[in-house]
């Protein structure tokens, strides 16, 4: 039980960046733009957040939160590149995303060498400190799982899930956004500015992915290194698919994948998991996503026009 109580908050902490980034991917794909650059945007966000936190830590106790904000902004700026190439220049979205991923890996470490004279940022001393919510923490059973030593980004993730669900499914804006991802020509004929909606979709995904990268680095790492993000952006894509492009599905998938990551550490203390190589837990999210895709096949759960170049001339 001891293990359970220390493992679940860690699993939640692991899942927060995945969920946030996947929600970003949701906005982008719902608007019709595939964003495989989540990984790269997370790197840029994480790097920016770590750098800002290092600089501000001696000045303010809220440095970590400024770091989050900075990472979010950096994500928006970086994703604008993707928006510009894939919306204005109508470039292939996967190529553009790939270029951003390569660029992020190089740029962040390059800048670390310029700013910090080493291949990583300097170490921040606390980042985002875990919180224990007074009062709620003493609720039996639930308290220790959700409110003791909880990672702040997990609460942010939950809030964003609710916001995303409301915005995408309950507002006129959401309806328009989804229309652009399902049938852009029809949307345009109803007077929706498809390009603007897609821009919003990509920039929101940049903001979320930047935030996710920041959250990951500030809670799980002590500095940004080339290996900090390590495929999390792709696991976020997996979350999006596994969660059927739905915010609550994404949350569930994210927690599940977070648990898989946490299990790889704790397996040796859980009797029936002893002896399972950690590689098994690492590959779980990817294998399950392939299976999920097979199960969903033909049921058209994703946005229909995602990845398709919108061309105003085509009716």
């Amino acid at each position: 039980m001891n293990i359970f109580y220390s493992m679940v908050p860690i699993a939640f902490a692991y899942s927060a960046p995945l969920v946030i980034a996947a929600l970003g991917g949701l906005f982008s794909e719902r608007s019709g733009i595939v964003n495989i650059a989540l990984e790269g945007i997370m790197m840029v966000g994480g790097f920016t957040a770590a750098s800002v936190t290092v600089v501000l830590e001696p000045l303010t106790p809220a440095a970590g939160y400024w770091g989050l904000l900075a990472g979010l902004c950096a994500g928006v700026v970086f994703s604008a590149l993707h928006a510009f190439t894939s919306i204005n220049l109508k470039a292939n979205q996967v190529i553009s995303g790939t270029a951003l991923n390569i660029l992020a890996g190089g740029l962040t470490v390059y800048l670390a060498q310029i700013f910090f004279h080493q291949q990583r940022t300097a170490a921040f001393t606390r980042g985002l400190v875990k919180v224990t919510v007074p009062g709620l923490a003493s609720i039996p059973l639930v308290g220790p799982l959700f409110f003791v030593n909880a990672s702040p980004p997990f609460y942010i993730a939950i809030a964003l899930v609710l916001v995303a669900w409301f915005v995408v499914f309950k507002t006129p804006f959401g309806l328009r956004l989804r229309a652009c991802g399902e049938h852009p020509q029809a949307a345009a004929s109803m007077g929706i500015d498809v390009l603007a909606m897609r821009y919003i979709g990509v920039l929101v995904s940049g903001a979320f992915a930047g935030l996710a990268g920041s959250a990951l680095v500030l809670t799980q790492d002590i500095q940004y290194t080339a290996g900090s993000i390590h495929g999390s952006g792709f696991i976020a894509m997996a979350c999006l698919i596994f969660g059927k492009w739905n915010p609550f599905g994404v949350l569930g998938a994210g927690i599940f994948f977070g648990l898989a990551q946490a299990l790889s550490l704790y397996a040796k203390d859980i009797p029936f998991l002893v002896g399972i190589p950690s590689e098994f837990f690492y590959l779980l999210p990817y294998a399950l996503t392939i299976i999920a895709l097979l199960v969903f096949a033909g049921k058209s759960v994703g946005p229909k026009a995602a990845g398709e170049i919108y061309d105003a001339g085509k009716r």
Partner: protein
Amino acid sequence: MKTRLTPRRTVQGMRPAFWVMAAILVLIFAGCAARGQEQAGARAGETQEAAARSGPPKIGLVFDVGGRGDGAFNDSAYAGLVEAARELGGRIVGEPGAPDYGSRFEARCLSSKLEGRDRAQLLSVLAEDGCRLVYAVGFLFADSVARVAREHPNTHFVLIDGSIPDLSSASNVTAVSFAEHEGSFLAGALAGYAASGNPRAKVGFIGGMDTPLIRRFQSGFAAGAAYAALAFREPGRILVQYVGKDGSAFADPKTAKAIAELMYSTGAEVVYHAAGGSGAGLFEAAREAGKLAIGVDSDQALAYFAKAGDPHARETGSRIVSSMLKRVDRAVFLTAKEFVERGAVEGGYRVYSLADGGVALARNEHNERSLAPYVARLDELSAKIVRGEIKVPETPEAAAAFIAGLK
């Protein structure tokens, strides 16, 4: 995806756009190149002849995965180089603002890629660049050093913390190692003394990559803890976990932190690590849990206390009760000194141990008070090890036997 990857191409329409773009770029490009060449030329003019023939002797150093900033092993090696520059009047080149105390030698540092598959490459580049002494920091370099040393007989290589078979004093390789098990024994004893107030306490060890080298730390630590306090001779009281299975395990504070959190939450009072840059994760966890940690390689508390004005850094620093010093800096400094003063370094093997201060427990103004109750006992243990009265085990099997023998 219905995106067309190879869209229709029409030449006439785009020609002007492309030529304009191309022209502008060629200009920028040419400008940069010219400027660059000029700078390079100017620099080459003043140093080339000198460097190649009568200039300062060159020293090269290749960091292991993680590079500078790990707060441990790599930083310690760099500190040795800086100390050598200061003491002997040399300089470090390669980036703006690097230490420059004169021209008795010129040192440059490279770091290997995350996967580390370019280790041999980097060593060769330095040797071919005219470095007469090249440091390879970390045991993962062993194979690369062996090969590159054969190809560059005029360059001397110092392998820090690793071993290559069949070296002699005439070899162009010096393999430096440390008696980590001895230092870890003291770390274990310290952990044992510090935790013995609580009869149900545990102590923990976090290793980086699971290798024979890191197991020596583990073995020494376990033996030390068991030697210090009866309680730790029972099974299950010394927790051991490794961060990973490859070089990146030394640069993964994320995982180390999760492991440490688990150890503290299951009753560990003191946790010792031998996980390079990952150790920072342990210290974070120690601060959050309010428990103690022991650092490794360099005096790791100092980096935290150096961040003046940051109360959390001080708090973290105060959780690091001591560090098992592995004086990589000393080894680098001494070999660099030998090289600069005598023009050559003797090949073969060198082991730095408790006896010559190559390994030790860190003492500083900050941990003076918390160490005070144990210092006398630790010194006594140290003396016993130096005299050979305690033979510290180097493998987990030997440690188990050692602990069994204590009963």
